[in-house]
């Protein structure tokens, strides 16, 4: 009986949510923007290369061209200090920043949510131990972890499987990309901590409510209660917090680039582009404006989409 109830509920929840989401204009616009952005980021660099020959790392051969030019027909976003096309760099940087954002959010959703939910629901000693582990990981200096990671996995001592992965995915000679895997690992390591805390807080307040008791009374197991009943009801803050994770992760990535663990030059990310751009703000404003605006728009849409999803998942929302 419990089984059939869940099946129906599940379908109507997601189906309903999708319908409601489609009615939210802002969310739809955001979705469109993100879609276009993803396509642009994926195929844009190749199109630019075929039509104009510019790439993210192409420095012009002429000495006089190796400097920052303002936007023009040829370079819609101008060029950077080395005379490289900013549009190509922003698109290439988007690949990395989006990948960083998606992967970390994914980790924080999977690990953080289930960890927090289990701790919150089980409570007592288990909760205590689980949350203290989070405290400890949170308290260990992050940059120290990163430095050690870099020395163990970076350089000539990199394990073969990482090297294999990077040459297979990144193409031969793209050593810069092997660092990316380390980067994802380093970001994933910490991105779930606060999420776990937020979810646990929510679960604590939900677990004594009537619907949980009802489920328990009907014989639903711990796993079922946590993943079918508690988590869906805590999704609002979870979605909001997930959208908050993306910008903070993108900025952490910029900070890690500083330590030598982020993307390796000549690759760029939005964070590292903004970092360079701000130093040149007074003289070459386009170096900050274009990556900055692209990043801001992306985060805006992510956020409105997140709100839309939150509202859509909330059965009590009344749309007008």
């Amino acid at each position, binding site marked *: 009986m419990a089984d059939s109830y869940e099946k129906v509920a599940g379908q109507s929840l997601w189906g309903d949510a999708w319908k409601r989401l489609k009615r939210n204009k802002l969310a739809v616009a955001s979705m469109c923007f993100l879609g276009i952005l993803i396509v642009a980021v994926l195929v844009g660099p190749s199109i630019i290369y075929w039509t104009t020959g510019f790439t993210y790392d192409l420095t012009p051969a002429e000495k006089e061209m190796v400097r920052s030019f303002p936007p023009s027909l040829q370079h819609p976003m101008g060029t950077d200090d080395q005379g490289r096309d900013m549009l190509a760099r922003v698109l290439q940087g988007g690949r990395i920043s989006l990948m960083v954002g998606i992967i970390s959010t994914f980790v924080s959703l999977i690990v953080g949510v289930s960890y927090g939910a289990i701790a919150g629901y089980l409570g007592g000693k288990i909760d205590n131990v689980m949350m203290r582990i989070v405290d400890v990981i949170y308290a260990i200096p992050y940059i120290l972890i990163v430095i*050690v990671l870099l020395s163990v996995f970076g350089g000539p001592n990199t394990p073969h499987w990482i090297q294999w992965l990077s040459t297979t995915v990144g193409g031969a000679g793209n050593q810069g990309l092997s660092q990316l895997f380390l980067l994802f690992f380093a970001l994933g390591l910490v991105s779930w901590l606060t999420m776990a805390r937020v979810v646990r807080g929510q679960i604590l307040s939900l677990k004594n409510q009537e619907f949980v008791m009802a489920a328990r009374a009907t014989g639903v197991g711990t796993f079922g209660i946590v993943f079918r009943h508690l988590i869906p009801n805590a999704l609002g803050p979870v979605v909001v917090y997930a959208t908050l994770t993306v910008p*903070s992760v993108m900025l952490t990535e910029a900070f890690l680039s500083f330590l030598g663990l982020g993307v390796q030059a000549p690759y760029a990310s939005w964070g590292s582009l*903004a970092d360079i751009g701000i130093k040149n703000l007074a003289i070459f404003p386009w170096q900050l404006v274009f990556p900055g605006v692209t990043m801001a728009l992306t985060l805006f849409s992510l956020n409105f989409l997140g709100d839309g999803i939150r509202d859509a998942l909330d059965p009590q929302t009344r749309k007008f």
Partner: protein
Amino acid sequence: MLRFILRRLLIIIPMALLVVTLTWGLIRLAPGNFYSGEKKLPAAVEAAIRKKYGLDEPWYKQYGMMMANVVRGDFGDSLKYPGQSVNEIIRRHLPYSATIGILAYFLALFVGMLAGTYAALKQNSVFDFGPMALAMLGLSIPNFVIAPVLVILFAFWLYVFPPARWGGASSLVLPVVTLAAVYAAYIARLTRAGMLEVLRSDFVRTARAKGLDDRTVLFRHAFRGGILPVVSFTGPALAALLAGTVVVEKVFALPGLGDIFIKAVLNRDEPLVLGIVAFLSILIMVFNLIVDVSYGFLDPRIRYE
């Protein structure tokens, strides 16, 4: 409740020691040491250093010596800045970071909760999207961008605040605003979400049905539950703010702990790193305890066994 708090307080000490141990291990794993530099050290000097700091001893002995000191609360002298003790450095620079941090915290709380609540009350109106867009702006602009922009605006166009350095109340404005911006944005977003959740719950509807006016419903009933997600966020946030934030301290050349800490890690200044980590971990755990306790007060549905 009291027993719960007491138990949690007692466990903080062994936890901090665990964090110190792990950190110590990581420093030892990290390449290089505090005395390695561009210029080669004369062999005799290197030998003298190793002897002085007991680096020739087996690792378990070094660990034992370190722990013996840490348990006594004595972290010894900084390696990079000889003649300055770690405790002294923390004591001297904590007030700087704490001043900026607490000011920024309250500014962020005030602005964030106000905007978040307001937006939740006026959901899907201009008053919702406006503050939320602003909050999103605060979130999506990194603080290393906000700070210089503020400096250009207020130090060079308007000439109202000094561009950097510690000195007087006016020098605090720009760093505090920079620091608060991100947190305010976070808090606004979380408050809005939390409030929306609560405003639709049964007890708020009941309260409204009883004929209570908006203000009472908001502050007596909804607010307490609505800021729950904010609370679990701001606990660790306050701890992090107190210990200083690197970017703001760097850009504004402030003598805070955050920048000192990062440099200590980059310099492999072991005692200083351990000292700050121990201090910081205790701080984080105490604030998390406060958060957990306040859950119980804010939401009567949460109980601790």
